[in-house]
């Protein structure tokens, strides 16, 4: 694996895999600002293979695999031939509609990957929302970084949900992308979002255990929707088996749009 040092190297490596592609398949949809963060922190590596390029991002104690392949045959061949699977703990995501994901699955299962979890995308169109209730909600502050990280790591699955690192949380706080509700000086709940133009994505919506059933989650969600009055399209990814969370999102107008994400774990994780 070669360390990536510039976004240009990423672009070149993706184009290399696309050259001559008849049925290009990928799970890599990088946003330049995120790429720069990963590169600056020495987290991103690449491996150029015949008909495919693999990118690896170091995430806590495992690697996230992103692939760009000329077609499903090249993907299957190169995954099977990659010797790193014998020694590395690897997670990868297969994203698309059911039929696209089912075409990619056969490339991974023979190499020892097993289904870890499944996420589904929910979408909400613009609609009026009633006023905020419950605890007052404001933007998270610089000093909240560690508490935000702790709450997210405590609630969400680190393999399944692409948890942010502390530096990403600090950058999000500075960019006013995290809403926080506090009670007695403690972080009771949060909503971490990413907004681009007329679209906004909820990355994490969480309430600390001791503050549940107190409308903290509703308060941060309503505040989020209130400050995004101009946004036309809201999206998020949720664990497909988390009926409780899905029910709450439905209450706020979200519904599945048919995109799914199969999270696969390599043998050293799933064993």
């Amino acid at each position, binding site marked *: 694996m070669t360390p990536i040092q510039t976004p240009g190297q990423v672009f070149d490596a993706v*184009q290399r895999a*696309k*050259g001559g*592609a008849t049925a*290009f398949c990928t799970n890599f*949809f990088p946003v330049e600002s995120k790429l720069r963060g990963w590169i600056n922190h020495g987290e991103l590596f690449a491996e150029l293979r015949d008909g495919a390029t693999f990118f690896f991002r170091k995430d806590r104690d495992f690697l996230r695999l992103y692939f760009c392949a*000329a077609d499903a045959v090249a993907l299957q061949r190169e995954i099977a031939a990659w010797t790193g699977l014998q020694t590395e703990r690897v997670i990868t995501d297969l*994203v*698309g509609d059911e039929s696209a994901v089912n075409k990619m699955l056969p490339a991974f299962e023979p190499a020892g990957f097993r289904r870890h979890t499944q996420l589904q995308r929910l979408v909400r*169109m*613009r609609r009026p929302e009633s006023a905020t209730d419950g605890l007052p909600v404001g933007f998270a502050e610089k000093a909240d970084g560690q508490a935000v990280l702790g709450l997210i790591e405590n609630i969400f699955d680190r393999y399944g949900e692409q948890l942010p690192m502390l530096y990403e949380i600090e950058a999000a706080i500075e960019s006013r992308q995290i809403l926080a509700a506090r009670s007695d000086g403690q972080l009771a709940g949060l909503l971490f979002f990413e*907004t*681009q*133009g*007329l*679209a*906004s994505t909820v990355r994490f919506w969480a309430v600390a255990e001791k503050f549940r059933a107190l409308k903290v989650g509703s308060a941060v969600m309503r505040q989020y929707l209130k400050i995004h009055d101009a*946004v*036309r*399209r809201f999206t998020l990814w949720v664990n497909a088996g988390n009926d409780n969370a899905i029910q709450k999102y439905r209450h706020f107008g979200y519904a599945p749009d048919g*995109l799914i994400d199969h999270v696969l774990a390599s043998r050293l994780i799933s064993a």
Partner: protein
Amino acid sequence: MKSVIEILTEIRPEFDFTASSDFIADGMLDSFDMVTLVSALDKNWGVSIPGTDIVPENFQNVQTIEALLRKSGTKP
């Protein structure tokens, strides 16, 4: 045959594509939409857009999408 604007509106009916000059920066198309759009353009115009051309710059607005179609051998 449908126009580029008609195809875009079918994919994302909530947006007014005539009011934007940068669909990506305005959040109107994401990576998944680009894949859907390529498939719809292929089907509607009978072209095959090469993988190397599926980059955000080619999907910024109606003009860049039409230029991509011309490059791929059709006349939008």
